């Protein structure tokens, strides 16, 4: 019964107070896009729209009683989603707005760790709104701003009209350093096309990474963000001049998250799976997100992986295309990751 039920997609909206979340929410609720959204907010606050499907909910972070410190869920979301899903005909999708200081991890993990929620809904994407002018300050005074960016699938770099082109470059470079895998949209007044933030399928393994040009491109830093229609800046390129495989956090002030991008040939499944299990067990608390496309020796399909802390999901995605290079790529975003150890042990799994 429950298996046959279609899973309702859930978009998580993060971002500091004043970054433009409410503006974006109002657009989602009022624009004529033919879909109905249930919206879970922390406070009714400034949403100027009267709608039965706006639910106010107190953020409740529940640590699971299994000895794992990173296994946290949002208890209030479990309850609200259960209530909403008893009358599923009312809406097509759910948007969860988090508070400015919210940790996005428990929100995301709720959709993987709670069986009831998982049966009825699926996490679509985590969208972070960033205020172009105030991000440097936010990064200085909080860990949350950085976590929100590090955890996002889509970053809406908002209020670009309030900064100079040079400042904007710098801010985008900072975002890219924290999270090389996210898609960045430069906007004013949260004017991103809604199709770029809703129905992204970022956690859907069959779609994962397909709409992720940064991840698929051959060189991590030699490319630019995706441009929205209101984006008129000149394209630019970072030239690092050398081909190192990880971004170091240290070169940008106030950034403690780093990413480790690994690349290799075909993997021996007997070595790779025990390795990735071990890495997520051991380094899980430090890993915010991981994404990967793995070429397994003797397997005609691409194997896709994604993870949040110690939660790891993987599946065969599709057959390798003719002429497509059978290579394995894996990105970790987190703190205190030992890039050299990860790289060496990853490479040792090659067939």
């Amino acid at each position, binding site marked *: 019964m429950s298996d046959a039920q279609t899973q309702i997609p859930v978009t998580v909206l993060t971002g500091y107070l004043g970054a433009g979340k409410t503006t974006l929410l109002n657009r989602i609720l009022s624009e004529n896009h033919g879909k109905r959204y249930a919206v879970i907010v922390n406070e009714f606050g400034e949403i100027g729209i009267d709608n*039965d499907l706006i*639910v106010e909910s*107190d953020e*409740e972070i529940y640590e*699971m009683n299994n000895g794992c410190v990173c296994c946290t869920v949002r208890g209030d979301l479990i309850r609200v989603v259960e*209530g909403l899903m008893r009358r599923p005909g009312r809406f097509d999708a759910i948007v969860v707005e988090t508070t400015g200081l919210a940790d996005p991890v428990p929100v995301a993990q709720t959709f993987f760790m709670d069986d009831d929620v998982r049966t009825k809904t699926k996490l679509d994407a985590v969208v972070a709104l960033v205020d172009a002018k105030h991000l440097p300050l936010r990064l200085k005074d909080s860990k949350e701003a950085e976590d929100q960016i590090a955890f996002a699938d889509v970053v809406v770099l908002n209020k670009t009209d309030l900064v100079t082109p040079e400042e904007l470059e710098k801010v985008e470079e900072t975002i890219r350093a924290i999270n090389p895998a996210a898609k960045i949209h430069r906007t004013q007044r949260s004017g991103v096309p809604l199709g770029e933030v809703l129905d992204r399928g970022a956690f859907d393994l069959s779609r994962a990474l397909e709409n992720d040009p940064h991840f698929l491109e051959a060189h991590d830093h030699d490319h630019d963000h995706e441009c929205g229609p209101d984006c008129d800046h000149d394209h630019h390129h970072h030239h690092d001049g050398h081909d190192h495989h990880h971004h170091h956090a240290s070169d940008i002030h106030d950034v403690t998250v780093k990413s480790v991008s690994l690349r290799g040939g075909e993997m021996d499944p007997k070595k790779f799976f025990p390795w990735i299990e071990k890495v997520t067990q051991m380094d899980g608390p430090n890993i915010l997100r991981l994404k990967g496309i793995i070429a397994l020796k003797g397997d005609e399909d691409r194997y896709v992986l994604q993870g949040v802390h110690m939660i790891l999901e993987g599946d065969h995605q599709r057959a390798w295309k003719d002429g497509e290079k059978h290579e394995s790529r894996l990105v970790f975003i987190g703190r205190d990751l030992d890039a050299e150890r990860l790289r060496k042990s990853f490479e040792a799994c090659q067939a």
Partner: protein
Amino acid sequence: MPTVAPLDLEGHCVAAVFLNDVPHFALADGAIHGLDNGQKTVQANDGLLAAFHDAANDRLITGGEDGKVFAAKPGGEVAELASAGRKWITSVAAGPQGAIAYASGKTAFVRFADGKIKEFAHPRSVEGLAFSPKGMRFGVARYNGATLHFPAAEGKPVELEWAGAHTGITFSPDGAFLITTMQENALHGWKLADGKHMRMSGYPGKVKSLSWSVKGKWLASSGAPAAIVWPFASKDGPMGKAPLELGTRGNTMVTCVACHPSQDVVAIGYEDGMVIAARFADAKEVLLRRPGKGAITSMMWDKEERRIVFGSAAGDCGVIDITA
């Protein structure tokens, strides 16, 4: 042979109860359908989330998305008892002397029979509510334990601590034990006389339905492929004892349990809509209803111990007559 009188309704049935011996079905959209010589429908909440059968007053207490609490009586009479603003009412309970309790966010409210309302603020969300069968006392399930309040008196609440998220709560009929359901697949219990802990774990799924047998000798629970029935007859409850496993099935889960009013028998509802009755003494089973469209969400026996009213998540509800 038991017979089933089906009633196909639209939507998730939150509560299936007898009011004045008439079957009533409260659905998630807030409509309450009564089956008394034909179907009568009344509207209570705009979106029903929680319902509690107030046996002493023969009424159904409901709380919903509209932030309101209603009492539905037999014959289609619906009265608004309280309103708590725009937030959802997520839990309701009925207590002695016509008192009711309801929860909205981090606040528990008690409304006395005279209409006076008392608020109990908590640092974390109020997840579940239950009145003690003795005295004016109620319990709140919360993160990391439970809190006991004495709403008729001033004074400090009693805090019972146990790490983890507690989502539902019930007192044993003699008031000796307090049991909570947890976000983890487990129950937790306290012996109230000495605060001793009882861990009841090993469930493959979350426990969402609990039912005390006659005189509270057993506690039946959902959350497994069988009804898990814990022995509570001795003074230390189920500590050190194994539960009964009744009505075990290989391919589905128990979603609802309802103990017989006077015998050691439990009605067991499954995820696929099947309903059976099982006897504690010899685990003998009787099929009461074949699988249907949705998981069984609610069941109740009538006073004559002859009929069981049931509701499902898909709206295929009905009444089982076990003597026919």
